[in-house]
């Protein structure tokens, strides 16, 4: 029997309005404990206003082996925004 706790991915927000960014994962028996353990590990030194945790197994991901999923088979450079300046930074609402 696998007695290891399952893993939760941890997302950290340093300021309200900023995106939650993935910072790592924790082992925990359930989401509530995962939040507490994530607090000890990721919110103690980093400034933090909000944490999300999500069961790692609930994340559906692409397969690195399946490179063709992202392949660009024809020239799509016409789709790139080259003829105007895009602002570097958009203000958050």
């Amino acid at each position, binding site marked *: 029997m696998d007695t290891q706790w399952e893993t939760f991915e941890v997302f950290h927000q340093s300021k309200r309005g900023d995106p939650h960014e993935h910072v790592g994962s924790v082992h925990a028996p359930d989401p509530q*404990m995962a939040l507490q353990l994530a607090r*000890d590990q990721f919110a103690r030194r980093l400034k933090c206003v909000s944490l999300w945790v999500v069961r790692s197994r609930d994340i559906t991901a692409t397969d690195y082996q399946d490179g063709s999923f992202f392949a660009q088979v024809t020239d799509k450079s016409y789709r790139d925004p080259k003829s105007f300046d895009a602002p570097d930074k958009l203000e958050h609402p």
Partner: protein
Amino acid sequence: MSVPNPPKCSPASLQMFLLALADDELVLGHRDSEWTGHAPILEEDIAFSNIAQDEIGHSLVWYSLHQDLTDATPDTMVFTRSWTKFVCSRFVEYPKGDFAYTVVRQFLFDCAELIRLKDLTRSSYTPLAQTAERIIKEEHYHRLHSQGLVERLGDATEESARRMQAAVDQAFPQSLGLFELLDCENELKTAGVFSGHTVLRSMWLDEVVPVLRGVSLKIPVVQDGAEYQLKCEPEDGGRKKLHTPHLQQLVHDLQSVHKLAPEARW
């Protein structure tokens, strides 16, 4: 605050009260730090190392209030005092033991500390009230952590139930020593420094008993009307400096670096 300050209470009694608070936090913090590198799971290793630093941080705050009354610095109290002069409860002296014992001890301690801090926010001694207000926020999360583990381990599997019950059997009578009456108990109560250990213990039982019984752990108390009656002997003695040899070893370890190089600064 409309309360008198300083209260009608001798400095010696206040010193004793502050020292008991500080020594409990220091010694338990040291025990928690012994899990660094040894906890059964990495996340708990980090959590207990974090809690250890918090508890030792709380002790520094209490030693500083003690210093205001005595001029003895926190470093003097921690690094040069003989273990026979400590007034921590015997409960916090015992070795860290099984992880289940650590979890149960931490839970019983966190609940007691939270209740004590809530009470102290209304203390007639203003520095105590202000400090309690500050520390209480952090202690709330300690309790969430330790209670979370108790609730998940108490009756999860045959093994966890057995180890948690053994821990409760050992820790519960010891933990009652946190409420050992002080020689200056009545003076502190009358002066409004705190509500007294009998009141605190009764509030503490109201909180810990339902949590432990909620996960089928047996505790030696019976309900008598609205009150709980104890069915075991509290392990007192610590406040009277009657310690276990475990404290001698702990203080020896704690002071060993200082003894090697008393003048060292870091």
